[in-house]
């Protein structure tokens, strides 16, 4: 499926210099920031990042920016439309020779799950309809993190947030953004996790090599909103993959392929017990919720074909 041989064969091939500067106001142990810098390492600085309101809007606070490429904050609902404007303007300048080919930029949208699953969805769908040449990155910390972790459409069933404090946590289910985007038929679509940097690097490398709408959902463990010690940020990501909670997969040329299928998946409790937002699930009366979660994960993976795996 890989169009070209990846340069990221082994961990030692990963970039070892960070392109994104330190000194940002993200929380200590921010899993989203870690994933973003890993992505930025591959994308490089010939990029313009078009941002929607969310935690990452605070990456650039006057006069400080961690980016060595360009940045445009738009609004919560319309970052993809901002990307449309930027791409169109760059194309116009290219065609009029007002911009040299080597000065062209990759247009990247950066939004949180709140915008991506909610008010930004319409603008995103429109951008895919129009076949915009851009890369969309949704860092998914499963709630409105920047305002203190209220539930969003990406919050998993049962998680406690500041607007779902009832005994069973959030009553809704995490929206299947991957499938919604897939139904719009983008050029490329993948999920990544910063704790699996090799898989991430290969996918971003591939996305970068393609044109048209390319979509990435990056798992973003949030110590503040999910209530775990900052030092566990990477472990939580690893557990999300190894328990099968967050499937690593990609969609290309009409097919979905899972890029990390575990021989033996860890039980979901291993993932849940490390996070304060799930602590109420361990009360006797909520045991059924954990069972339901495990069953749902098992059903998901029983449908996944085990052939053609990469790792």
């Amino acid at each position, binding site marked *: 499926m890989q169009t070209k041989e990846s340069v990221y064969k082994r961990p030692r091939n990963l970039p070892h210099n960070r392109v994104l500067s330190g000194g940002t106001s993200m929380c200590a*142990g921010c899993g989203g920031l*870690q994933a973003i810098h890993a992505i930025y390492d591959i994308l490089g600085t010939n990029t313009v990042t078009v941002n929607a309101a969310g935690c990452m809007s605070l990456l650039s606070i006057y006069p400080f920016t961690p980016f060595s490429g360009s940045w445009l904050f738009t609004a919560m609902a319309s970052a993809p439309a901002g990307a449309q404007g930027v791409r169109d303007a760059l194309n116009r300048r290219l065609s009029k020779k007002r911009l040299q080919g080597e000065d062209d930029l990759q247009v990247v949208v950066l939004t949180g799950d709140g915008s991506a699953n909610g008010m930004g969805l319409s603008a995103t769908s429109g951008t895919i309809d129009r076949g915009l040449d851009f890369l969309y990155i949704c860092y998914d910390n499963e709630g409105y993190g920047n305002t203190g972790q209220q539930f969003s459409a990406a919050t998993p069933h049962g998680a406690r947030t500041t607007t779902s404090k009832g005994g069973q946590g959030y009553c809704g289910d995490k929206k299947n953004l991957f499938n919604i985007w897939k139904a719009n038929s983008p050029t490329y679509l993948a999920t990544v996790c910063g704790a699996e940097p090799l898989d991430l690097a290969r996918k971003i490398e591939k996305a970068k090599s393609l044109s048209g709408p390319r979509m990435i959902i990056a798992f973003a463990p949030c110590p503040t909103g999910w209530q775990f010690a900052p030092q566990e*940020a990477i472990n939580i990501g690893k557990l999300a993959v190894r328990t099968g909670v967050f499937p690593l997969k990609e969609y290309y040329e009409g097919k979905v392929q899972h890029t990390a299928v575990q021989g033996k998946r860890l039980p979901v409790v291993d993932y849940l017990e490390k996070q304060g937002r799930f602590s109420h699930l361990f009360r006797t009366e909520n045991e059924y919720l954990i069972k339901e979660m495990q069953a749902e994960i098992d059903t998901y993976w029983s449908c996944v074909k085990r052939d053609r795996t990469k790792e």
Partner: protein
Amino acid sequence: MYRIRFHGRGGQGMKMASHILGTALFLADFEVQDAPRFGAERRGAPIFAYVRADTKIINERGIITSPDLVVVADESLVALPQAGVLVGVEEHTVLFIASREDSVVWQQRLMLVSPVLSMDVIGKDLTGSEGQKFFGTICAGAAAALTGLVERQHLEEAIETELKQFSLAILAENRTRALAAYDAMALHQGLVVEGKSRSADDYQRPEWVIVPSDGSHISAPAIHGSGTSALAQTGTWRLVRPQIDTAKCKGCWWVCSTFCPDSAIEVIDHKPQIQYDHCKGCMVCMVQCPARAISQVDEKEAVIS
């Protein structure tokens, strides 16, 4: 009017401390206003909260610029200019610092005429390493005594009100420490005196300027440099720091650096180097290092050594 300012780090319970003192003063029949000061900063970053108390309705609002009492939950903040601990401190301002060093040491170090008190008088068993997470309530208890406006029972009731969402055990731990701090400050009950209100007769005229009309190339909120956030010293947020044992480091050249969320580990010639200007002390690197070459040390001790 009494004006009290609490300084600490995000996560140290400064909002809680201001709420405990605020409620205690309210129970003691004062008009009260309390508020935390929010910013873009997160856990570990310097933050502050404030409390105003008066016998009449409080019309003053916003940040306290001339405090009567400054309470510092984290002594490392005193030396940080951006924490603003000493802003507006006048001769009458009392300082309480949650430090195990002697009050006299602090007074000399800061070269202040103002009275400075430290935590040294409170028993070590309450303020030892386990006690650190209770510095917020210790500060609230000490402040309550220093104002001389709050009875012991008001403080007790305030703690019960403000910590009611926690378990009884946690509540008890907090209560014990707050009351111990209150009792330890008995000698200094009422040391804090009310600041004067501003006089409209004799005031310093504001140095207003006519803001010039600049070109849009500088008057729009655009940053024309790259990577300028490197100038922001988020290393000051750190409570603990990672240290690399170079003998144990296998030079894998990617694990700690890739997993550090803050781009704070640079790999030079296969050897990782931690950029302490930006490291927030999340300790992800320690947990991920396959060779276990990274250990955790207390920031204060690291700075001293």
